[in-house]
């Protein structure tokens, strides 16, 4: 069951008194702990891009108390890439952060569907990526699976250099240091930079 309840419900229950009141008070307590969990997740960083949090990346699908099972805190994450080695580190970091704050027992459940898209990266996340020197992803192309067109090696879409804002950039490698990035360089400032690929 989802522990998210409207505050007015708790107020109504409080007015009623009795066992309902105590039950609702517990729910209210769960609500505040869920809020605390979300706040803590804003501090759990991606190990590969240690400026964006798991919340910035949009990989946290849900945070809930599994009252039907054991009352444990369940965090639902969605993987970014099938083979991303950071996934297990992220799971461990999420558990550690919430356990350390006394919100345990904590478990992480991976949920593949709907598949993660870079469109879920927050505006804040995009800003942090740019400041870190990584060009943030543009919108994922919903038609990419239908119309396929091969482009010459150097004619991939021009990106804005995260350092000097020039559009005089080119792709030098379709793949990069992690599954989620490609390598580009800026001809204006001469600096190489990474691009978070839209998927």
């Amino acid at each position, binding site marked *: 069951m989802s522990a998210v309840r409207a505050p007015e419900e708790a107020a109504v229950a409080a007015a009623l008194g009795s066992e309902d009141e105590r039950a609702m008070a517990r729910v209210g307590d769960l609500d505040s702990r869920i809020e605390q969990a979300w706040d803590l997740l804003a501090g759990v960083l991606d190990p590969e891009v240690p400026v964006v949090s798991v919340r910035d990346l949009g990989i946290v699908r849900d945070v809930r108390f599994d009252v039907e099972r054991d009352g444990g805190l369940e965090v639902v994450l969605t993987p970014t890439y*099938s*083979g991303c080695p950071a996934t297990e580190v992220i799971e461990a970091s999420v558990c550690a952060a919430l356990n350390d704050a006394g919100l345990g027992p904590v478990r992480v459940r991976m949920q593949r*569907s709907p*598949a993660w898209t870079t469109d879920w990266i927050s505006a804040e996340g995009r800003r942090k990526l740019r400041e870190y020197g990584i060009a943030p992803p543009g919108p994922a192309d919903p038609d990419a699976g239908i119309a*396929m067109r091969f482009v*010459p090696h150097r004619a991939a879409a021009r990106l804005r250099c995260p350092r000097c804002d020039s559009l005089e950039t080119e792709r030098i*490698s*379709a*793949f990069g240091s992690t599954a989620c990035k490609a390598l580009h360089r800026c001809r204006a400032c001469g600096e190489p930079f990474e691009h978070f690929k839209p*998927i």
Partner: protein
Amino acid sequence: MQSSIEVSRQPAVRYLLRIGDTCLIQAQRLGEWCGHGPVLEEDIAMTNMALDLVGQARAVLTRAGALEAELGGTAHDEDQLAFLRDERDFLNLTIAELPRGDFAVTVLRNFALSTLLKLLWQRLLDSSDAELAAIAGKALKEARYHQQHAGDWVLRLGGGTDESQRRLRAAVDLLWPYLPEAFESDEVDDEAFASGLGPRWADIADAWHAEVAPVLDEAGVAPPAPRAFRSTGKKGVHSEHLGYILAEMQHLQRSHPGGVW
């Protein structure tokens, strides 16, 4: 020495193993390029694609192992399926296990297989198996990028030098005889189609040719004339090459059962 597991022979399990094993063995071959790529960018590209494929294989093998139990057999996890199966229980397409060859062979095989897998994942989005559909949703995005990259390289090799053109031609002649296997359906496919698990591979043949033929054409290479030869990897009867891959891949778990990093 860790002995082999006995794998379910249920058609639905075999259907999943064909997909998972093709991803896994292709990943092994791409991974062999680590430290050997012709340029650094391609070294990174091939290992990145291998990583995606390993991830896809893990997910599909995990599902296959769970399905074994659901169909009345013994459950196996992804590691047991990868490391404790004998050669005859691997159901990858033979083309995936052929030696990595030169860069043209690698590029062309990657183009052929990523196109096939992309088309499969597209159709598996509608699988009656919710977990397989979820795996497909993620894998499709990755296969699309692999296909784009490999197709781009087919064109570059075709339009490059006489030498790159010659090597691309040799790669087509070597690899193409192994492709008909992919598009011939059998009882495994028929049952998957009937249950809604996934498409008959024969039913994606037209779409595959429609995407591959124009690229080969533009690259200036023509497929060789069809031959009677048929490879049979997806039925578990492999070329001499798979045993060597398994010897390397499985050695640690076979010699040190349960060993972990």
